[in-house]
């Protein structure tokens, strides 16, 4: 065996081999041992179900609606969470003012907000977005706060003696870039939590469309192969969003922190 192929095997080969083996075992178990499409759809069942939703276009409608819900939730969590975290981390009074409220609301599981989401916003996109927002906003606030609180004093003093003396430019030029790694990892956590909230919100009736809603709908129709397709799509999509975010943040925003993974 040449050195190159050995290297290839240790590089990507093992991962691919492992995936392929898992698929083969799944197919054999589902088709020959369980042999019940309802209990465990096989790989090929799922593949056909996938082709079917691509063909009818249902996938793209639900995908775009789920991404819309997710986008509404995450963007509003950023718009509201970052300023709150910044003010809490920078101004002691703001911290004391916000902290008790946040500590009381934060432990409420986001899904417990579903009834109010429906009462307040009805069965709209805003409603599902709101549940995502509730899940995403706290990790963003808390990580922004942590990042701001642990800005090394030396950078603030260095900026002051260079003539950057008031809060706004200090926040903008020193504290924010210094806190960015922490904020970025908060956003990553928030997207993970938000993604889970999205599916739950769509399943439990805050929406009448979307990937999560489709899981529930096909379950009622006892089409477990479709349920599994949507589950896998949700998994892949979550992975993809996370990867794109990390690629952007590590490669562009945090180039100065070489080798650090958020």
């Amino acid at each position, binding site marked *: 065996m040449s050195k190159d192929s050995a290297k290839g095997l240790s590089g990507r080969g093992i991962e691919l081999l492992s995936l392929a083996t898992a698929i083969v075992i799944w197919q054999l178990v589902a088709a020959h041992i369980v042999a019940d499409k309802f209990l465990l759809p096989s790989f090929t069942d799922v593949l056909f179900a996938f082709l079917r939703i691509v063909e009818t276009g249902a996938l793209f409608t639900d995908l775009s609606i789920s991404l819309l819900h997710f986008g509404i939730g995450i963007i509003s969590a950023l718009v509201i969470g970052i300023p709150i975290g910044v003010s809490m981390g920078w101004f002691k009074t703001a911290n004391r003012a916000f902290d008790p409220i946040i500590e009381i609301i934060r432990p409420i599981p986001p899904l417990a907000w579903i009834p109010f989401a429906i009462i307040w916003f009805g069965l709209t996109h805003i409603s599902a977005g709101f549940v995502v927002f509730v899940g995403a906003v706290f990790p963003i606030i808390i990580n922004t706060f942590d990042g701001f609180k642990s800005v090394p004093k*030396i*950078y603030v*003093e*260095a*900026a*002051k*003696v*260079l*003539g*950057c*003396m008031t809060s706004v*430019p200090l926040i903008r*030029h*020193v504290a924010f*870039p*210094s806190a*960015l790694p922490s904020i970025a990892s908060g956003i990553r956590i928030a997207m993970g939590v938000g993604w889970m909230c999205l599916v739950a919100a769509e399943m439990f009736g805050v929406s009448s469309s979307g990937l999560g809603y489709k899981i529930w709908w096909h379950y009622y129709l006892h089409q477990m192969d479709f349920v599994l397709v949507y589950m896998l799509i949700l998994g892949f999509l979550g992975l993809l969003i996370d990867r794109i975010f990390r690629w952007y943040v590590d490669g562009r925003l945090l*180039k*100065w*922190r*070489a080798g650090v993974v958020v």
Partner: protein
Amino acid sequence: MGEVKISDVSLAFDKENGESTLALDNVSLEIRDKEFICFIGPSGCGKTTLLRTIAGLETPDSGEITLDGERITVPDSKRGMVFQEYSLFPWNTVIQNITFGPRMQGMSKGESLERAEKYLKLVGLEQFRNSYPYELSGGMRQRVAIARALANEPKVLLMDEPFGALDAQTRNTLQNELLDVWAKNQITIVFVTHSVDEAVFLADKIVVMTARPGKIKKVINVELPRPRDRTSSEANELRHKLLRMLAEERRN
């Protein structure tokens, strides 16, 4: 002009148990324009505190410090500072670090870039223009920190053990470079060090401080001709004298 006048400055720090420690006790000193002053003293004697007070980072409890007759209360760009720790902004490239001061002064992008290039050249790091601080060695980082402080064209450059973390050879090189910079820029330099060798090589005047609470024990004029020979017998004699004084303080 860069004349610093320290008059009867006292400063105490509050400790957690409610007591306070006196860090500076009635310190008075006049620093003339374009002078190179070194503060030396046992560790914890308040030399860094005095420097930070000149910078405006600490406020004295009593007394005052003036720069060219103007009272110092807050930090501003007339006094540049180089810290002991690495204080470059790690998220900015070398050139962005150096333009920071001029930008904060409200200079245009072009102007501040021009200014920064000048000082980058002065410290000889043009080829590292777009590097991030983590890519630089300790000595290079402190060179950039000096360029960054100078880019504001301050009247006084305050340096807090800036070469303390460097190895002996880099340290010597940077001392020589600093003297060149000082000769070219004609500014006042106030330099805190714990190294007798460094003080003897650099300073016009060495201010020896007592152990806590910090007072001025003695001000020694260094008459050695420049460029100085680190190993001359006169330098040795002065070092000997200083070491004796410091040993005396440590005993107290």
